[in-house]
């Protein structure tokens, strides 16, 4: 039986189908999860995809964080369920306080959409275990509110505990503090990142296959 990975659809999600496709590319079964349904349907992991959930009114991810499905995701994440938040999903995880810090408007006040070089710095999470420590990958980034911010004490703690999962190389696309592209929680099961690994799983639809590792990392462990 292939592992079952849930992909949440909020009103305004854009990349749920691409995330589900990436899950299938990695040999897992993609289970659609609906924002208004509290059931996680016995999935072994959850992906919160990119987009503009609930129009991103108030703050990006602020309304989605209180959706019925998130009650279950928050409880399950605290019990160790692997959760990957991509872009808007990262914003939702920060609003839910499953991850520290927050995502603010890009420093240049412009939407950014480009292929981005990253360094994978933490390969101990269920979503990055398939990468080599320090591996450099090219993964697209596309966001308006992608500037990762946190107070100095939180940033120091993230750095010293190895919880910066990925960092921007060759220029910081959105002004994120300390070039942070992704972080994880203390237990390592919850990972959020702004770049879109689901858009880098084959040469037809992306710049390469560097993003597939996020999904293969999970299926490799579960298989």
């Amino acid at each position, binding site marked *: 039986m292939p592992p079952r990975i849930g992909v949440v659809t909020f009103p305004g999600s854009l990349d749920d189908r691409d995330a589900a496709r990436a899950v299938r590319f990695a040999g897992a079964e993609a289970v659609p999860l609906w924002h208004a349904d509290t059931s996680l349907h016995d999935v072994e992991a959850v992906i919160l995809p990119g987009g503009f959930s609930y129009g991103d009114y*108030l*703050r990006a991810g*602020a309304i989605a964080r*209180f959706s019925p499905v998130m009650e279950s995701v928050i409880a399950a994440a605290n019990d160790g369920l692997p959760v990957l938040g991509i872009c808007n999903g990262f914003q939702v995880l*920060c*609003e839910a*306080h499953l991850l*520290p*810090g*927050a995502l*603010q*408007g*890009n*420093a*240049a*006040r412009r939407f950014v959409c480009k292929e981005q070089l990253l360094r994978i710095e933490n390969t101990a999470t269920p979503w990055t275990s398939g990468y080599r420590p320090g591996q450099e990958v090219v993964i697209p980034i596309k966001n308006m509110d992608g*500037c990762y*911010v*946190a*107070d*100095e004490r939180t940033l120091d703690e993230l750095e010293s505990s190895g919880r910066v999962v990925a960092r921007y190389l060759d220029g910081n696309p959105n*002004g994120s503090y300390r070039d942070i592209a992704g972080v994880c929680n203390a237990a390592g099961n919850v990972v959020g990142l702004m770049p879109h690994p689901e858009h880098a799983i084959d040469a037809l639809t992306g710049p390469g296959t560097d993003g597939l590792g996020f999904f293969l990392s999970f299926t490799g462990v579960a298989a």
Partner: protein
Amino acid sequence: MARVVVDVVLKPEILDPQGQAIVGALRRLDINGVTDVRQGKHFELEVDDSVDEQTITRLADTLLANPVIENFTIRRG
């Protein structure tokens, strides 16, 4: 019924690119002497008298503001 006003602003240590853009625009308008602008959000709530202070604080702290990056003030209007 009462009007309650909640103002939300970014914490001082958090960068405010929109505020900085406003400072830049003021200079282009030849308005000098404005050294900093911090942009925030202003909420006006019509609430029943049965809603207590604790509830107002909770809604501001959980939904209207993100306490990780923002401070808020509450006043009865």
